[in-house]
């Protein structure tokens, strides 16, 4: 675990840690990006699984994905499954950010590192970003 994380740091040496935000809600994407940008991250946003996947496929590998579950097109469950089954993204962590009633259970099932239930305090977003990218 420790070794994997230091390898990731080396990979991103010289760059800011990359964070990907995936949510179909325009307002929430804007808020997440705003809240994280001040922390020295390279933050990008995608409105569904397809857009997120095409960004990552192009070689932009984030250290953490803040992921909504219910989205039109490719939803969060499917995107998580694709990330987890591809070796290129073995170091990418997922934080489920959803309005679900049982978000903790969903997060466990898709192998996420953490979860946040909407509405949440923005400091929680930064806390997870810091923990998972700088571990």
């Amino acid at each position: 675990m420790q070794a994997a994380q230091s390898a990731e740091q080396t990979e991103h040496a010289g760059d800011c840690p990359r964070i990907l935000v995936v949510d179909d809600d325009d307002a929430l994407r804007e808020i997440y990006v705003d809240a994280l940008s001040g922390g020295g991250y390279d933050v990008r946003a995608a409105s569904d699984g397809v857009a997120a996947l095409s960004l990552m496929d192009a070689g932009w590998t984030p250290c953490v994905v803040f992921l909504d579950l219910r989205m039109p097109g490719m939803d969060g469950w499917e995107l998580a499954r694709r990330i987890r089954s591809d070796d290129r993204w073995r170091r990418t962590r997922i934080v489920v950010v959803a309005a679900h009633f049982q978000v903790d259970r969903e997060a466990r099932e898709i192998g996420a590192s953490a979860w946040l239930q909407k509405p949440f305090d923005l400091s929680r977003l930064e806390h997870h970003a810091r923990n998972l990218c700088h571990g």
Partner: protein
Amino acid sequence: MTTLDDAAVAADPLRGRLTAIFDSVADGVTVMDRAGRIVFANDTGARLLGRERADELIGMTGAQLLGEWEILDDAGEPLPADRMPTRRALAGETEPEETVRFRRRGSADDRWSLVRARLLNGGSPEDDLVVTAFQDITSLKRSESRLQFLSEASAILGEAVDYQQTLRRVAEIAVPDLADWCVVDVLEWTRGITRVAVAHADQAKVAATQELWQRWPSDPARSGAVYEMTQRRGPLLVDPVTPEMLRAQAQDAEHLAFLESLDIRSVLVVPLEARGEVLGAFTLVQSESGRRFGRGDVEVAAELGRRAGAAIDVARLVWETHENARLRDEFIAVASHDMRTPLAAIRGYAQLAGRHVERSETPDREQLQRWLSDVDASVDRLAHLVSELLDATLVRADQSVPLHLEEVKLSAVAGEVLERHRPLSDRHSLVLLAPKDEPTGHWDASRVARVLDNIVGNAVKFSPDGGEVVVRVGYDGARASVEVSDQGIGIAASEREKIFNPMYRGGNAEHVAGTGLGLAGSRRLVELMGGTIQVESRIGHGSTFTVWLPLAPAGDEEAAGP
């Protein structure tokens, strides 16, 4: 005309008259000698033994008759020859009696007789005769078996938990006592007609009808057992089934050959009915047994249909109660989910603004203003959700919805709805068409928007390959209309009315659940404003939903609610 011996009759008019008397009695009578040869039979006896005239029997032996007939006891077990009353009388038993069930070898057309025999002592064994009387009790036995069937079926139907399984069991016990085939079709308001059961003693034949049904399906809106029953609302007896009827039914030559191979002789269809509504049909068929349906069968089958209908009705009510509870739970879960999103935005903007003020010496007033107006917009979204939720709840509970009628231009409402949908799909082009001289009407703008939102949302969802969604505003004298056309997958004719059923769940069931109105709620809201919703569709070409609203505020009183 039957004789012991023609010459003897001619010589003895008394014997001739005796013969005539025997011919007129209702029971079949045969007389045998000790060698087992028939020396006399009356006409009824001849008919019971499958002969047209009694003299065809004279000289035949009991053993020859046994070769033609299978003889069973009342329970259907083979009856040993020494239990036959004729043999027992010869063995010295006084007036033996037995209920005998018999059928021609290879046939399933069972008949019953109460058989009595009596030895006429001739003084010497070679002059002894045995008189055997057959009382035909077939119709009595059949009524008995029908009553027994009804009572067994009622017991099964009384357990009605899973009504489909129950109907399968009823079909199984109907065969072979009542019919050679039994088919049960049920009209489901969610999925059209379901063939719940096909029963036949021979499993290979069951497979054959399944094939028949799949290869040559009938259009449930125009033909088939259930259609017939909804039209006629009573039993249908087709007896006998003629080759012309099969030809009229057949869709092609192969279909005809298939139908002919089934050897259908007689068909009886009865409705499954409850509270005046046809819920399905029982189809009973007589084929290879050679039996035919009679009035007694019609009565029993009709009664069965009523009892089965009641059982289905009860099972559905139970199911609906559970389903309603489940939908309500799902509704609450989805509602809380949907409201959390704007709440998260409100909190997010407020926190961004708070931090900004905290961290900057000179806060950026414009930025703060933007965040505040974003909070405002999110509150709007939340308020919209809450009132939508309230509408959906009232409509589901069939309660009146307070309307806010105001002067509205439909193109303005439709335009806003399309703007909301535009960012959600880049595969669809959303087009609004409206006449220049479009009149205004008095409607509840937010409700009209909600209805259109629903219909446009469906148009997008059910045209997964994209294409145009055209919203056309129009009017024709007293009414205004909004027509929403898509180029999507279309809706089957059999589904077109069902989509407006509150319990309807489309193919895409997980998305049907929600806090939205659904089409049922949309139709109800439109009706509250004095209008209607219609749908036209072609499979593979798309659907058009048209909302009609009255231009004159005629429906105000009823629309305004209590």
